[in-house]
């Protein structure tokens, strides 16, 4: 396939760095640093103890190397664990936001004003480690919805944080979740009271900012009985030469009849075409369907990061609960992704659905890794998994690692997998209608991902489509 051979790269379009005065911790990790972070954030004693417990456990763990990715050794003492833009006063309106920050959002095409005006989205913008501005908070407050930064939640709603933090992803869960628990800087906190349907998409844009700073986000979403919330997470990061570690933890709790829809568009800096730079994205995302008839749905479009390592999972504890995972993972050039999901069926009549679409171009490697576990008491559990791989060129790799463990004979588990290539015939057909090759690839790829993109809220779907096209620009000669 000559046409697919000439693989080049497109430059990362969001590569710029905004200059804030930062308030940084010295490099390295120790109990003192954990205490420094906790003190900086003016945290209560229990939060510090919780962090220290995580840190002490982390010391006993070794970095895992089972994912199908390779990268140089990470020196955890060479990382700055706390950095925050200096905030001089509390802001009441968007006009008071740092002009440079607003400029940054403009470059990304996601200015707060526009977000507010056009989409009705409440935005909790996280630059580095501290939430700078949260909008729509008042409107949400009327409904009893809490949507704020994690730091604020620790101060204002300690009882909720204390009850739920670590309840889905314990500090001791894995190497990176332990690290995150010890040093997490900020993140989002969401609480939807009983019976409330959140009237707007809640959204957070994350950005990594200060050079050499690992970012450790912590997000917690609680949906009380009969409530509904749709949450959007989107990321872009400035261009960097050195690798940056990003180890986030996201926890979701859905009570009886509650539904949480969590959508991600991830576009961290992927490194240059030779694999230099780029973000290490080692994330632990997990939700629990605690109550009967609850539902958690993960949708992700992963185009960035030099290494992606994440498995948004659902623990289906409540009877009749539903877990869904829709994923598009694009790797180009030297990117590596090992991503998938875990569906743990505990309750009766639980259902899970997995749709994974991997796209590999350049010399990249793209792995789907998923676990479907039907436990003993999970009568009539059902799972459907579909894992498709699309290859562009012949120097990339696609891998599928499905794990299925069934301990109950009444379970129905289906797994389908396909691997295909973008055909020269398809491209010629498009060319013959006047569509150039770049646009043809975008069209074919978007068609291939349609099932997943359809799960995204409208405004996000449009952004995601553009992102797919940008990520694969120049991947076909």
């Amino acid at each position: 396939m000559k046409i697919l051979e000439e693989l080049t790269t497109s430059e990362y379009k969001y590569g710029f760095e905004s200059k804030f005065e930062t308030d940084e911790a010295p490099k390295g990790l120790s109990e003192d640093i954990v205490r420094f972070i906790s003190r900086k954030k003016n945290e209560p004693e229990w939060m510090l103890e919780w962090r220290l417990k995580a840190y002490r456990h982390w010391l006993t763990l070794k970095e895992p190397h089972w994912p199908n990715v390779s990268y140089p050794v990470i020196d955890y003492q060479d990382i700055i664990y706390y950095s925050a833009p200096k905030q001089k006063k509390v802001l009441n309106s968007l006009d008071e936001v740092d002009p440079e920050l607003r400029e940054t959002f403009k470059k990304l095409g996601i200015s707060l004003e526009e977000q507010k005006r056009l989409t009705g989205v409440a935005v909790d913008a996280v630059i580095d480690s501290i939430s700078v501005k949260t909008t729509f908070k008042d409107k949400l407050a009327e409904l009893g919805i809490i949507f704020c930064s994690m730091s604020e939640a620790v101060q204002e709603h300690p009882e909720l944080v204390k009850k739920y933090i670590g309840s889905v992803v314990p500090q001791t869960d894995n190497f990176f979740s332990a690290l995150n628990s010890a040093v997490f800087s900020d993140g989002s906190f969401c609480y939807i009271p009983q019976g409330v349907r959140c009237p707007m998409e809640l959204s957070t844009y994350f950005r990594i900012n200060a050079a050499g700073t690992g970012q450790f986000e912590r997000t917690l979403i609680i949906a009380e009985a009969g409530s509904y919330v749709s949450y959007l997470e989107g990321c872009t990061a400035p261009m960097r030469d050195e690798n940056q570690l990003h180890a986030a933890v996201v926890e979701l709790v859905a009570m009886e009849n509650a539904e949480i829809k969590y959508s991600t568009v991830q576009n961290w800096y992927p490194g240059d075409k030779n694999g230099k730079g780029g973000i290490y994205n080692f994330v632990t995302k997990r939700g629990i369907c605690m109550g009967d008839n609850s539902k958690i749905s993960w949708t992700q479009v992963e185009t960035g990061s030099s290494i992606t390592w994440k498995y948004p999972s659902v623990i289906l504890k409540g009877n009749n609960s539903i877990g869904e995972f829709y994923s598009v993972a694009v790797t180009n050039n030297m990117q590596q992704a090992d991503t998938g999901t875990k569906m743990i069926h505990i309750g009766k009549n639980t259902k899970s659905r997995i749709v994974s679409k991997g796209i590999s171009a350049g010399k990249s490697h793209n792995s789907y890794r998923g676990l479907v576990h039907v436990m003993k008491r999970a009568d009539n559990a059902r799972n459907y998994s579909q894992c498709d791989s699309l290859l562009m060129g012949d120097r990339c790799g696609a891998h599928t690692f499905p794990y299925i463990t069934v301990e109950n004979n009444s379970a129905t588990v289906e797994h389908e997998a396909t691997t295909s290539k973008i055909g020269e015939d398809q491209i010629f057909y498009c060319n013959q209608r006047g569509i150039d090759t770049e646009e043809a690839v975008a069209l074919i790829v978007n068609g291939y991902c349609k099932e997943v993109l359809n799960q995204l809220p409208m405004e996000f779907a449009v952004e995601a489509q553009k992102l797919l096209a940008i990520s694969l620009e120049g991947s076909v000669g």
Partner: protein
Amino acid sequence: MLSIKDLKAKVEGKDILKGINLEIKPGEVHAIMGPNGSGKSTLASVLAGREQYEVTGGSVLFDGKELLELSPEDRAREGVFLAFQYPVEIPGVTTTNFLKAAVNQVRQYKGLEPLDAVSFLNIMKEKMKLVEIDQSLLKRSLNEGFSGGEKKRNEIFQMAMLEPKLAILDETDSGLDIDALRIVANGVNKLKTKDNAVIVVTHYQRLLDYIIPDFVHVLYKGRIVKSGSKELALELEEKGYDWIKSEVNESTEA
């Protein structure tokens, strides 16, 4: 409009076209007939610019421009349309979205603004009527799970939307029952004007009952060995290709 001079082409190292000469003027319909393996589809593909076909000689002028120097997409944008013998499936992309991309790229090439959604839909509705295609088909993934007839109708619909100067129908009749054939042919006839031209590539005469050619050319062993009016097609129908083959073989042996 189209002037093919001594066109030669290879596929996988094998000479298929050995010197084609053909002149086509606006408003004309030319039928290219011939036995299997004579090079009919190769000619269609070479004109459209398919990469696997290596042009080894000759020239093709299209409205004064050398077609062979243009990329496949630029040939399309200049107004060359190929109705494929085997239309390709593109999962997840509806005919509507596909055509929107195509129409707007062609417009961009011509320096025109892209069509907004409303104007596009209006044009689509009008053309749908013209070629008798059902809207439900246009909402489905392009050609995926389409019957043979649906695929060919979709090709003609695309032709209606793109309004080419030169349409090349490559074995459009293959795999069609008589009703589908009539609908497809009606579509082509309705799109016919004094300013555009059609090349009908076909093995059989029956399509030419519906699309009446001004000229019929017989392609054999990579050359046009006989040209005539539509009566030539009827003669071929009656006598088969053998008499032409023997004529050609005798003259080359002599």
